[in-house]
């Protein structure tokens, strides 16, 4: 397919305007964004996930995630018959290069993408001794890497294993829900890269958000509900064997 010069002359200014909108810098200078208008969450549709690992690769590219550490990862479960307490779970390099071909036709398989659950009552925020990790007014759990001591207490306190200490920066690091993107009307890198729509950003303060509608009307689960973390990553059709 070829783009004619004429097309470029028309389309380029349009693209430039679109791109300027994206590059609009801080939330203050992105004129539309008000934190109090949003309460961010995510929906993960388990039956749609094919374990391609696109999300893990995209997250690494977008956020410069160091090798061997994961802001998001995908687990593959294999549950034999009714044996929910003994699933076989693998996550080779976090699922970054996908998964090996499964040959055992017996039992049920599914893929579970995982990430920071952006907990409303986050235990990691509770234990930080200095206030370096926090929940923003719009529901993202972030790390102030200029203030963090690197004590790793938050890493111990997270029930989901989503935090790590950055090997070069020596501070806590984790999924930021692509805060730098969602505040500019973009979606997260993982959602953008997912080919099947298994991951979708949701704004729980927006009544017209179709994903919010889905969460409101379907049976969804969170990971480890007994921990009472107020997790905001919802899973559609999460099997009971998922840890």
């Amino acid at each position: 397919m070829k783009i004619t010069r004429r097309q470029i002359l028309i389309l380029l200014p349009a693209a430039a305007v679109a791109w300027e909108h994206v590059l609009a810098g801080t939330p203050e200078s992105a004129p539309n964004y008000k934190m109090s208008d949003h309460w961010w969450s995510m929906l993960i549709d388990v039956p749609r996930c094919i374990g391609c690992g696109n999300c893990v690769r995209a997250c690494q590219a977008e956020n410069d995630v160091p090798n061997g550490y994961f802001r998001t990862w995908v687990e593959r479960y294999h549950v034999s018959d009714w044996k929910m307490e003994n699933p076989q779970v693998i996550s080779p390099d976090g699922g970054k290069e996908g998964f090996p071909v499964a040959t055992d036709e017996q039992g049920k398989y599914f893929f579970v993408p995982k990430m920071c659950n952006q907990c409303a009552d986050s235990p990691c925020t509770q234990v930080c001794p200095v206030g370096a990790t926090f929940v923003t007014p719009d529901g993202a759990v972030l790390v102030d890497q200029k203030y963090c001591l690197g004590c790793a207490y938050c890493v111990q306190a997270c029930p989901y294993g989503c935090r790590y200490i950055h090997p070069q920066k020596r501070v806590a690091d984790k999924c930021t829900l692509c805060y730098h993107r969602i505040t500019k009307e973009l979606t997260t890198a993982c959602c953008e890269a997912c080919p099947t729509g298994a991951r979708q950003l949701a704004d729980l303060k927006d009544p017209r958000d179709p994903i919010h509608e889905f969460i409101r009307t379907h049976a969804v689960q969170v990971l480890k509900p007994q921990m009472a973390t107020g997790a905001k990553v919802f899973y559609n059709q999460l099997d009971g064997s998922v840890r």
Partner: protein
Amino acid sequence: MSVFKDSGHLFRFAGLFVLAFLLFLLIRGFVVPSSFGQYGHYRGAAIDEIAAHPIKFAGHQSCEACHQDIQDQKKTGKHARVNCEACHGPLAGHADDPASVQPVKPDTAVLCAQCHTASAAKPKGFPQVAPADHSTGLPCQTCHQPHNPAIDAGGAK
């Protein structure tokens, strides 16, 4: 009173404490960042700093602004919901300056296999093949146009 005379050393010790405390308050006034406590027990300015991180994936809306013809081709096929950068990688640089940053065409031998290699683990309804058997060594785009992969839509040009 003689009690004070004989406990003067205790007052000196206490005095050291008071001095240290005042010094602490003074230093604290200088050292604690001004935006601390703005929204909660954290540095409010951190929110803006994090929101200002550079963007690598432009997002499909930016792509569609220029590449409407591809979008038209895609929207009637099975890959309608597959965003451009899911296959083409992060292209914010290209969206910013299309002439100087040229995207690399993905290698279908690697790319297509990532999603479509058959596995007992994948959802049953999902289109999947064993690549070696399926195409007998031919590249995927011989028969499938990636933007609209249905077999009767013709191969890639």
